[in-house]
Structures are given as C-alpha cells and as structure tokens.
C-alpha cells in the first residue's frame, strides 16, 4: 500500500460528517502503514469496547467481528491494555495476538487513549505491518489523533450537550410536525433519507428525547416551531 497523501490541516476543519472522520482516521492509520483502525469508547464493562455503537468508527471487515461474536472483547490483550493505559503505546501482536486483527496478519498495534470533555474514555487502535514506531513518531501520531478526535467530538459527539437547532434541523422538525416521513422530507428538501434521519437523530440527542412525537412536543414547548 503506498503512502496516502495525508493533509491534516484544511481537511480537519472541513470535516462535517462521520464519513469525513472515517476518512481522516483512515488516512492517519494509512500514514502509519496501518490498514485497519478502530475508534471506540472504552467502557468499564466486561466487553471493553462496542464496535456497533453509533459513535464507533472502524474499517474492520465484518467477518472478523463475527468471529468475536459472543466472546468478550475485554479479554483481548490489546483492549485490556488500552483500558489500563492513559498514554499511547505500541504493541507487538506476535507476542500479544489480538482477535480483532487476527485475520489481517498485522504485526503491530498502536493504541492511543483519548478523552472527551465529558471525561468519557475512547481509544484509537491501529493495526499494521510496520515495526514498533519510534518515540517521536508516537508523539506526533498521538497529537494528530487527539486533534482529529477533538474535532470529532466537537462536530459529532458533543451534540448531546449542544442546545439550539440549526436552520436545517428546525425545517425537519417543522415538516415532521406536519406528519411528513423522513423519505417525504428528503424529497421536499432534496436530501437523502439517510441525511434526514441523521438530522433527526441529532435533534433527538439535542432535545434529550427519544422519539419524533417527543421531538415535536419539545420543539413546540421551547418555541422552536410554532
């Protein structure tokens, strides 16, 4: 795999959706000769990480994950070490074989622990062919990872604590209150149904509600729509 062009600068501030952050994290990993990466919240629970969580980003083939089905990821040596560490570290997979990257043939895992403002723990794990990176390379990598993650948090994760809806979101609440489905709204606004649903998901989180009826009621109460 050739070295991908890696432009953290302008691309970082331009990232607006999960796809963009997928691209950024992937580029970061590729830059380290890592074909696969996982970004996930690290919970205290037994399984350690949940790759199905809507906030998780990864490019592991589903088949590999199927292999972990039913088994606790918390027991994976990489995940276990990631749960214990607060500093970035590389791991030699030959000595600590990981279920996650088993099929990839990766020799090395690079783990970067990350934190949100709300003190939630995340970690970025990259699996690659390269030998263990040097100290300086780890430092730069950790910084880049932290920068991308901070941006990811600001644009995507922090919506829970952001109040106020943007213009697009208000349009969608308004159409929803008129009884339009996501598909109908997508046609009206010239968006994809996926995007409309993304907006609705974001609105639900912003308003701290769980369904459309509550969304409309809350928006009416707070005067967001009339």
């Amino acid at each position, binding site marked *: 795999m050739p070295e991908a062009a890696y432009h953290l600068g302008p691309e970082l501030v331009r990232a607006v959706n999960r*796809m963009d952050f997928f691209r950024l994290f992937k580029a970061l990993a590729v830059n380290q000769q890592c074909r696969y990466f996982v970004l996930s919240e690290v919970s205290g629970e037994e399984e350690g990480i949940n790759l199905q969580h809507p906030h998780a980003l990864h490019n592991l*083939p*589903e088949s590999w994950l199927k292999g972990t089905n039913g088994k606790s990821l918390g027991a994976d040596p990489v995940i276990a070490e990631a749960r214990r560490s607060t500093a970035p570290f590389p791991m030699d997979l030959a000595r600590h074989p990981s279920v996650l990257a088993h099929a990839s043939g990766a020799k090395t895992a690079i783990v970067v622990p990350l934190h949100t403002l709300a003190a939630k723990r995340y970690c970025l794990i990259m699996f690659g062919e390269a030998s263990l990176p040097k100290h300086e390379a780890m430092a730069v990598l950790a910084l880049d990872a932290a920068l991308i993650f901070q941006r990811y948090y600001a644009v995507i994760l922090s919506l829970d604590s952001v109040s106020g809806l943007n213009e697009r979101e208000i349009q969608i609440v308004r159409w929803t209150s008129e009884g339009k489905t996501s598909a109908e709204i997508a*046609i009206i606004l010239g968006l994809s149904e996926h995007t409309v649903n993304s907006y609705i998901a974001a609105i*639900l989180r912003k308003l701290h509600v769980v369904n459309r009826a509550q969304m409309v009621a809350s928006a009416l109460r707070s005067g967001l729509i009339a």
Partner: protein
Amino acid sequence: MNSDRRGQPLKILLVDDDPAEHVLLRRTLEKVEGPAIELDYVGDIASAVASVKAGGIDIVFLDNRLVPNNDFRETAPQLREAGYIGPIGIISSDISGKYFQQFPEFGVDFRIGKDEIDRTAISFIISEYTRNQLSDNCAEDFL
C-alpha cells in the same frame, strides 16, 4: 431502505465519464465481503437521472466533474429532483476544492477521494448508509 429488500443485492450506481473508473470500482467491490453488491454504471448525468428514476438504486457514487457540467453542485440536485432519496457520495480525484465544503447543501451525503476508495472504505460506506440510525421506538409508523 434495506428492511424491505432483505436478501436482494445492494445496488450501487457509479456515474463517471471515465469507463476505467467503472472497471476499478467493480474490481474493488468484488473484494468487499458481506451482502451481495450490484454495480451499475452510466457515463453521464442524464443516464444517471433515468437510472434512479427507474428505481432500485441504493447508493450513488457521483463523479464530481461530468462534462459539460462544472461540478457536483450542478449534478447532484438533478438526482434529488428526480426523487432519489438514497445516499449520494461524490467521488473525485481531488476533493480539496473549497466548494466541496458545501456538499450537504446540495443534497450530497458524503465525499471521498478516488484514491481513498478501497474495500474497507466501501464497507464503511455501506454499513454507515444502510444502517438504521433511529431506534425502533422512533420508527415512523407511530405517526
């Protein structure tokens, strides 16, 4: 979108005036595991509009520059006007132009550089854009 068509292959439409790109994407998709994927290819936007109108397209990969149009801002809306509400991704050999930032306003769901496309990226796109983002209690039938 995928619930009523379970079992059916996922249908991707590539719109690119360079037939070589069709070959490249086809070969890439062959390596993506998971549900079966079908790739349709058209070389211009008019054919693309006809294609989405015909229905059955789950994801559109739209080349940024399609002669004689300048860029996606002139083409993506045409697909939306045709009533297509599935995801549209813009593919381009260079997505660093400033105007790319406006993609959400033109009904585009994501952008990706041609050199970024590999099977893991395709997998992510498929899982991301076919996933049900809203929980069951937020299903539309409550309305």
